[in-house]
């Protein structure tokens, strides 16, 4: 028996605008139905549908005997079009298709976050796993795609640990958290004062709360809004006029108001630091125009970052991730080549298959390297 061929048809943020992607997305509640219809496509043995905000992709293990070369791609495209009541020609130019080793390479790259909008982001790996699990639960996958997707999950983890692709914070909020961690040892012992109810400030406060910051205080001009925010963070509201006392207590101050002048000046912070006996203070100014006088950064033991400072760090981290892309792709290519070599070898019976299965968890835990893990598959299939 010959190995089936792998066919990938899809569209992503790189090929189609969101207005198109949303029309071609598969809502999770319709996925089982879609998978059933996909498997009715002639030649389709197994299928997985990956549908996220940034991509819609269909993975098919196709029976080469039933379909001629190239035919399978067209029928999968046709399925995608039919399912969304569109003509297949509407998909021309926005869809890409891969088959065989290129398809494996593509999936491994996607799982590793190399094709993501924010390079190296981890969400996509969870989405790939989720898509596979949904297909598996619907009975749409079997030996071939099981192996492929388990391997993809392993490669996704491998690439993230072996390269810098997922290193460094890439959002303003997470940069704030990382900086706070460079100043303070244990965030759970620290207090945060949020001044104002701006969107960015709220986001930064949310990040800090997620990372287990001790106590959250909210000082807002509108008392009601302040209370509502404080409730969301399980913190306490402080009267705007009493923000000074709160600042004496706080370790991290986030300013995010719509005020058009300084609400915290250098003179005030100097007095504050004397009251605090020099206890370090981390100030994050997320307002535009800025709310904290920039020279506050010159006050001893006070560290002031404004939105541009955080953005610069975000850019630097993104650049670092991008600079790792080539290395990450080489890793993905090596993994894909090894995997596909084992996949495309003729299989005589069940023995080979059992040997093929590499549990990503086992492989990762035993520290099996890139090439070892890849070639580990080979002797088994050669023997079979």
């Amino acid at each position: 028996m010959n190995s089936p061929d792998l066919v990938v048809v899809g569209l992503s943020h790189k090929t189609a605008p969101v207005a198109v992607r949303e029309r071609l997305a598969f809502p999770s509640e319709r996925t089982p139905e879609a998978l059933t219809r996909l498997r009715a496509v002639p030649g389709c043995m197994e299928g997985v549908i990956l549908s996220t905000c940034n991509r819609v992709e269909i993975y098919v293990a196709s029976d080469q005997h039933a379909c001629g070369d190239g035919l399978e791609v067209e029928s999968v495209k046709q399925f995608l079009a039919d399912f969304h009541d569109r003509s297949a020609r509407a998909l021309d130019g926005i869809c890409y298709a891969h088959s065989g080793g290129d398809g494996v390479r593509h999936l491994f790259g996607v799982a590793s976050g190399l094709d993501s909008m924010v390079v190296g982001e981890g969400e996509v790996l969870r989405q790939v796993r989720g898509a596979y699990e949904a297909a598996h639960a619907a009975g749409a996958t079997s030996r071939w795609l099981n192996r492929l997707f388990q391997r993809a999950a392993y490669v996704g983890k491998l690439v993230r640990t072996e390269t810098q692709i997922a290193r460094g914070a890439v959002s303003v909020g997470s940069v704030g958290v990382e900086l706070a961690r460079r100043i303070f040892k244990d965030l759970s012992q620290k207090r945060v004062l949020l001044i104002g109810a701006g969107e960015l400030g709220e986001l930064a406060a949310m990040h800090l709360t997620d990372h287990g910051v001790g106590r959250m205080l909210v000082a807002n001009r509108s008392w009601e809004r302040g209370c509502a925010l404080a409730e969301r963070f399980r913190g306490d509201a402080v009267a705007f006029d009493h923000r000074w006392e709160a600042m004496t207590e706080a370790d991290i101050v986030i300013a995010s108001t719509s005020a058009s002048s300084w609400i915290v000046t250098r003179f005030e912070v100097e007095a504050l630091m004397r009251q605090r006996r020099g206890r370090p203070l981390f100030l994050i100014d997320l307002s535009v125009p800025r709310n904290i006088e920039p020279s506050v950064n010159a006050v001893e033991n006070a560290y002031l970052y404004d939105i541009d400072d955080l953005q610069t760090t975000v850019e630097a981290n993104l650049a670092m991730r991008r600079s790792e892309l080539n290395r990450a792709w080489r890793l993905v290519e090596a993994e894909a080549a090894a995997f596909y070599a084992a996949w495309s070898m003729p299989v005589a019976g069940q023995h080979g298959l059992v040997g093929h299965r590499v549990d990503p968890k086992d492989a990762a835990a035993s520290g099996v390297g890139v090439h070892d893990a890849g070639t580990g598959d080979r002797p088994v299939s050669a023997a079979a």
Partner: protein
Amino acid sequence: MGDVEFFSIRIHTGLALASYAAFLLACISAVAYLWQERKLKRKDPRLIQQSAPSLEALDRLNYMAVVVGFVFFTVGVGLGLRLAIGTWDRLWDAKLLSAGTTWVLYAALVYVRATSTLRGRRVALLSVLGFLLVVFFFVGVTFVLPSRHAYF
């Protein structure tokens, strides 16, 4: 030299060396603190790309090392002083002077830390200065200035 004296000299030397080791550790953590503090103030975007202990952790390590070193130093020098009183004819000696100066400096450092008179960068600088002084005295008294202090 009696057994007790010989034993005292061993302890005196051991404590002195242990205190130097602690002061060195304090100095290293202070340098790391100053380096990271500078990067934070200058908003170096590469700062958070490397993993490093927080300023607070470095500061605490520094404090601990200074206090431990100071205790060792005090006991060690006290022991040495007792020995010197029993054996030397006069105490006006380069080694004793330098030990006294070092003791005063670290006592001051422990004091400003305990009372939080100074914080952060300044105490880190003081602890680097303290260790430079220790090294200077060590080299100076051992190899340059005359002292009755036998070995170092």
